[in-house]
């Protein structure tokens, strides 16, 4: 399996754990990721939030580059996935818009690319192929699997049910983990407001953390750098603001899949988290 890979702007910075663990897991599973040459920012929330044309054009430039590669595209970041997938749908559905955008980017895109999130790519693999490579069990993990909003909404691009997705739960269950029933699976963490209005974001994060804890979770798993940063880095701030004492490590799903496949914690960047992961790593046997 071969995909054009869109790592996203945070790949070397705030979300480097996600990029590094994604590449490591894909390599171990025989998924070949070809980084898109010359890729540029997808615009994330600020792009489409302030200009429809800009939001589409920033993503379309990348889709045109993928089309030249003759491959389908996968993105690890949930925000990048949503932006690329939305631009793809809108351009396929509206030829006038497509022409306008191609004029803006100067790179003609003809609509021949499929966009998938890395979660779909891994979850859609033959699970017995994955199981054959598993050397460690996640059975002691009680996971609140957190999807957030970007992969499950809106309808045109959702990878699973918007209210009760299970794609990531199933993948982790196959590796032995217990995944929990909880209420905040797809509730927004407010990441778009994090820099400008942190108080709102702390309030939302507190609700998510509280529900994960009361469901009995010993960790949280995400597939989105924005969710990850919010829940991991801001967890201490939430504790301070709301006098709570959460200590829930937040993993990328690729980090846990990697551990199950026997990849070393260092190679999955498990030492760079804000909430220490050691006590959970000891539970993986």
């Amino acid at each position, binding site marked *: 399996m071969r995909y054009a890979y869109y790592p996203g702007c945070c790949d070397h910075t705030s979300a480097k754990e996600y990029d590094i663990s994604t590449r490591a897991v894909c390599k171990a599973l025989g998924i070949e990721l070809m980084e898109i040459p010359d890729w540029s920012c997808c615009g994330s929330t*600020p792009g489409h939030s*302030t200009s429809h044309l800009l939001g589409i054009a920033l993503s379309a430039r990348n889709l045109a580059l993928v089309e030249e590669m003759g491959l389908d595209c996968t993105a690890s970041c949930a925000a990048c996935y949503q932006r690329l997938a939305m631009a793809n749908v809108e351009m396929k559905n509206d030829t006038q818009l497509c022409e306008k955008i191609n004029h803006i980017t100067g790179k003609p895109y003809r609509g021949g690319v499929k966009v998938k999130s890395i979660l779909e790519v891994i979850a859609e693999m033959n699970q017995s192929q994955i199981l054959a490579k598993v050397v460690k069990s996640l059975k002691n993990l009680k996971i609140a699997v957190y999807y957030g*909003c970007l992969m499950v909404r809106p309808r045109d691009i959702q990878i699973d049910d918007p209210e009760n997705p299970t794609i990531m739960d199933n993948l982790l269950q196959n590796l032995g983990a217990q995944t929990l029933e909880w209420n905040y699976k797809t509730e927004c963490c407010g990441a778009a407001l994090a820099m400008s209005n942190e108080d709102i974001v702390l309030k939302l994060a507190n609700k998510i953390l509280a529900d994960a804890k009361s469901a009995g979770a010993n960790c949280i798993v995400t597939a989105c750098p924005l969710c990850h940063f919010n829940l991991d880095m801001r967890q201490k701030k939430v504790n301070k603001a709301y006098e709570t004492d959460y200590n829930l490590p937040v993993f990328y799903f690729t980090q846990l899949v990697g551990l199950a496949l026997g990849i070393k914690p260092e190679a999955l960047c498990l030492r760079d988290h804000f909430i220490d992961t050691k006590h959970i790593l000891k539970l993986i046997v």
Partner: protein
Amino acid sequence: MSAINLTTIIKDNQDFIKYVSGESGQPVQQCYQCGKCTAGCPVALDMDYSPNSIVRMVQLGLKDEALRSQSIWICAYCSTCTSRCPRNIDIAKIMDCLRGMAKRQGIKLEGRAKDIALFYDSFLNTVKDNGRLYELGMMLNFNLKSKNYLRDADTGLAMFTRGKIKFVPMRNENYKEMALLFKRVKELEDKSK
């Protein structure tokens, strides 16, 4: 809001109603004000007008109120409203459309809205210059413009010690194409204003 005469407002603001429906591609007239969008909105309590009120404002042509609201900026684009609306209206897209309009029309922003808009600008400016987001440049620029110089300094430090921040921007090879892309967007938008 003071007393208003809806009959004249609807009549005078047909252009606005049509523009928002067309640009967002949403059948705003189909909203029957059930309030489901607002019920599920994670930030409705921080807004000045609830999401269903914003949709109602568009139906009624209350252009100024909608474009001056804090709500259109506070919306986090989680699309919960969109996926639950029984009338198949993508409210998140309407919010996007109104935000874009407010920006292009140079509406003076205050409060939370002002910082959100500044943040979006700081983000996009680094993309225009480098082709990719330059996180440090964005943070510094945002702090400078919002006059909150030490905002997130603790975060920055914690990120630095984990190698999660880069001092120099990451660029793509043809990053100079990006300024042109931004310029063409602006030209097209100026034309349709």
